[in-house]
């Protein structure tokens, strides 16, 4: 009965969609029989890890797949017309006009040598049948709507003259300007900072509901889903494994995958001493589609039937369906069993030992000076790090957070001695090592794992070949890998394994401090918890101090003892992690923590989403008074004139704001 009405009202009705990538090394089944319905004005989120087929699915809808991908089966009905049977020419009239698209990386989806006007006006003229002048006015109106200041002038800008956030706004304006009925947004905020992400999400939400357009929103961020979606489709290994209203999915998930995934996220409740539950293993290789349920190897509830027969999506509630043989998925106590027990109990170090300072940074500055050869007078100075002071004690973890461009990665490079400070001192007791963001690029692709981990030992000429190999094997065990990895090349490992190898390499020389720059941001959500657990194990086992740099505030909060919030090269707030997050004293910290989407729709509904306005000012042209004064919601005349110093706040904290108390 409900089904019947749904079909009639459906804006988009996808039935049994199949997409394959026929590569030379075999056929990859990217989308394996996906069916769903989007009704007019509805926001549907598609969540899944990389390789789950979520992007391939979205691209299949408009036949935008890159070679060698092709749709091999199913129907895509938009208002009852099958897009799959349309000619390329008919589809072109649908794209943009009826279905708008916003992609992840606006720099590559905008034409870099064409002004914004050139890219916006022509489609509006064609799709809405307006004259050039009318289309231009329409384009300016939309740019204004998406929050581009001075739209009349900025429409003549080139994409490279805009920031990432601005470019994504332009993309949204382009997608919405032809008044589409459906917007497909493929990870539209993944490349953006958390504060900008919050702005863009609000914008998409407001503008689509204003225009009555439906939206298909693809993401891997469960927090965004909670903030944004009406209904959620969870994809795993090319199939939808759970589909339902957002509240239901988060309150009572039925599929073990999403149940475990929700449990792995360092959330509001489970920070501190607890370990994160983790999903063992990695997603299946879609070149060899698994027999039976694709999730069975990683599922605690797997039983004989799961190995023979793949479950199909079946109704659990009025509007909630899941693809699992267990009617309610995993039980609570089973989920608890996914929390791994720590390998070793934390060493009970004497408290005096723990008090020892291992990193001391005083008045650290790093300025990048550039002076054009032909105009030395036009010398510009970027103050990437502008006078910071920090202490890290033995065995402690310091989290550094801030938007990109705030100088946090420069601090990491200075700590490691990769760059020399312009001014100030860094004292480090023992050795600092680094865990990199993207181990795919921090490994020489032509070296095997054994050689990669051995390299630090070989550089220092420690031991002979045999002894070094023994040490490499020991390190691999320590990070949870076995010696079958030794002879592999980095590209033959999964993302999680590569990050473990990177950690093993960092540990090779027994460092006292490990700097980790976004160590989990390149990883899949289900693997992230494994790495976070590993890092906290190592911290407890080896008494290493960590400096943890990330933009994922929930992770930073989970792993850190202290947190330093950086803004434009300066620390604006410092203190114990929970204190800083629960009771932020600086308006910027408050804005940051407000911007983080919490994976719980009930919590999200209660929050006031007033995202931080504006963007990071250019570091070439810093505001005179408080660096945050240009974006601060509580700014006063004093802030614009007088720069607040970092001062003590409630004994254990420090904050740089005139009005902290």
């Amino acid at each position: 009965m409900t089904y019947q009405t749904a079909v009639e009202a459906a804006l988009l009705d996808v039935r049994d969609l199949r997409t394959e990538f026929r590569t030379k090394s075999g056929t990859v089944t990217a989308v394996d029989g996906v069916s769903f319905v989007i009704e007019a004005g509805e926001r549907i989120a598609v969540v899944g890890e990389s390789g789950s087929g979520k992007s391939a699915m979205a691209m299949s809808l408009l036949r935008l797949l890159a070679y060698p991908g092709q749709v091999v089966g199913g129907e895509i009905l938009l208002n009852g017309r099958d897009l799959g049977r349309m000619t390329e020419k008919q589809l072109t009239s649908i794209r943009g006009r009826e279905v708008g698209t916003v992609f992840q990386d606006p720099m590559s989806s905008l034409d870099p040598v064409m002004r914004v006007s050139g890219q916006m006006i022509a489609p509006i003229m064609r799709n809405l049948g307006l004259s050039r002048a009318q289309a231009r006015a329409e384009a300016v109106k939309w740019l204004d709507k998406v929050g581009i200041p001075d739209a009349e002038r900025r429409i003549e800008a080139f994409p490279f003259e805009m920031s990432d956030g601005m470019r994504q706004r332009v993309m949204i304006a382009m997608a919405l300007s032809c008044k589409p009925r459906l917007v497909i947004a493929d990870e539209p905020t993944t490349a953006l900072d958390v504060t900008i992400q919050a702005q863009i999400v609000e914008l998409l939400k407001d503008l689509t509901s204003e225009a009555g357009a439906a939206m298909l929103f693809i993401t891997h961020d469960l927090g965004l889903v909670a903030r944004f979606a009406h209904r959620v489709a969870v994809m795993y290994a090319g199939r939808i494994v759970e589909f339902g209203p957002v509240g239901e999915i988060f309150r009572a998930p039925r599929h073990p995958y999403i149940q475990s995934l929700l449990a792995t996220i360092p959330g509001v409740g489970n920070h501190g001493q607890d370990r994160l539950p983790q999903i063992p293993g990695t997603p299946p290789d879609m070149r060899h589609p698994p027999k039976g349920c694709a999730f069975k190897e990683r599922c605690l509830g797997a039983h004989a039937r799961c190995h023979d027969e793949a479950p199909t999506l079946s109704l659990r509630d009025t509007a909630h369906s899941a693809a699992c043989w267990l009617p309610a998925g995993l039980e609570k106590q089973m989920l608890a069993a996914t929390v791994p027990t720590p390998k070793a109990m934390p060493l009970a170090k004497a408290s005096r030992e723990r008090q020892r300072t291992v990193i001391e940074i005083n008045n650290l500055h790093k300025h990048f000076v550039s002076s054009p050869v032909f105009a030395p007078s036009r010398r510009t100075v970027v103050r990437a790090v502008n006078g910071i002071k920090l202490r890290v004690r033995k065995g402690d973890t310091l989290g550094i957070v801030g938007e990109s461009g705030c100088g946090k990665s420069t601090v990491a490079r200075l700590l490691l001695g990769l760059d020399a400070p312009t001014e100030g001192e860094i004292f480090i007791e023992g050795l600092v090592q680094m865990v990199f963001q993207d181990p795919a690029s921090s490994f020489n692709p032509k070296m095997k794992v054994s050689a990669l981990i051995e390299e630090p030992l070989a550089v220092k000429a420690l031991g002979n070949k045999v002894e070094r190999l023994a040490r490499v094997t020991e390190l691999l065990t320590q990070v949870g890998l076995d010696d079958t990895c030794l002879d592999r090349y980095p590209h033959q490992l999964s993302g999680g394994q590569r990050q473990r190898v990177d950690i093993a390499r960092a540990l090779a020389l027994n460092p006292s401090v490990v700097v980790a720059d976004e160590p989990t941001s390149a990883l899949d959500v289900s693997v992230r918890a494994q790495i976070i657990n590993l890092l906290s194990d190592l911290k407890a086992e080896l008494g290493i101090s960590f400096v943890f740099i990330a933009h994922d505030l929930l992770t930073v909060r989970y792993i850190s003892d202290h947190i330093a919030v950086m803004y434009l090269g300066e620390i604006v707030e410092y203190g114990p992690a929970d204190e800083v997050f629960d009771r932020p004293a600086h308006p910027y910290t408050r804005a940051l923590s407000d911007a983080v989407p919490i994976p719980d729709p009930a919590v999200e509904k209660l929050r006031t989403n007033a995202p931080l306005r504006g963007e990071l000012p250019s570091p070439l042209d810093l505001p005179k008074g408080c660096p945050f004064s240009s974006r601060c919601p509580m700014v006063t005349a004093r802030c614009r004139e007088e720069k607040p110093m970092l001062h003590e706040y409630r004994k254990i904290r420090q904050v740089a704001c005139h009005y902290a108390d």
Partner: protein
Amino acid sequence: MADQSTEFLAPRSTGWRMSMSGFAKSGLLGNFKARIALAIFVPILTLTAFAPLLPIQAPLETNLFAMMKPPSIEHIFGTDKMGRDIVSRTLSGIKVSLFVGFSVALIALAFGIVLGTLAGFFGGMLDRIIMTVVDIFLAFPSLLLAIGLVAVMGTGLVPVIMAISLADVPRFIRLQRSMVLSLRSRAFIDAARTVKASQYWLMTRHIVPDTVAPMLVAGSITAANAILIEASLSFLGLGIMPPAPSLGNIIRDGQAYLEQAWWISTLPGRVILMIAVGLHFLSDGVRELLDPRSRS
């Protein structure tokens, strides 16, 4: 997530050492273009190596009773105006050509890799000096430069090799430097620097091994070019001096008799073409083998 796409771009197999050992087995024979190159070079190299054992006249031996004979069973490519056997002279000329080609490629690779790495890695004044000299050399067409240098150094095998190398080294320096510049900023160099690896270590363990493959491709194209330039110099009378045969001067010998005895120039000319084509196929094959994106 975002980096997954790069995973496909990351070199599929290799490791320089591994690719070399696996090369002969699966590589060269498995690649279509490399197979063509082998089909050209195996017979040519075999014939050249065993030329003294073949039942043909020695390259310098004249036979006044068989002058300007067209191709026949005894003289497959015919004979020239002094009754010398063209096949024998061609085989001997090939030896010269290949020697010149590979010497030039080796010299250009050696200097290119060393100077290019130094310039790219250290930058600054050293880079500026090296690159200024390179740019001056690059301003001249290589044949013209080679002619000029031969004019200064004199003719003969060694001056020809030196002249052609000098014209080719600058290109190799530029190529190597550009690769070093992009490798230098990669995260794995930073990773090695965090353990205080020396500059020498970075260059020999990370940078040079990662540039060898493309340099080899460039080297095989340069060998083909060098063979053509040597032939051109000899044709102009500036290279290998008669009576010693080289493909260039055999063609020069036949040029005056093109109407009466077309075979003198034409057949050695074909051989030059074959060698050049073969080397280009070889370089294409090597590039495809070392480039993960074009591999199955």
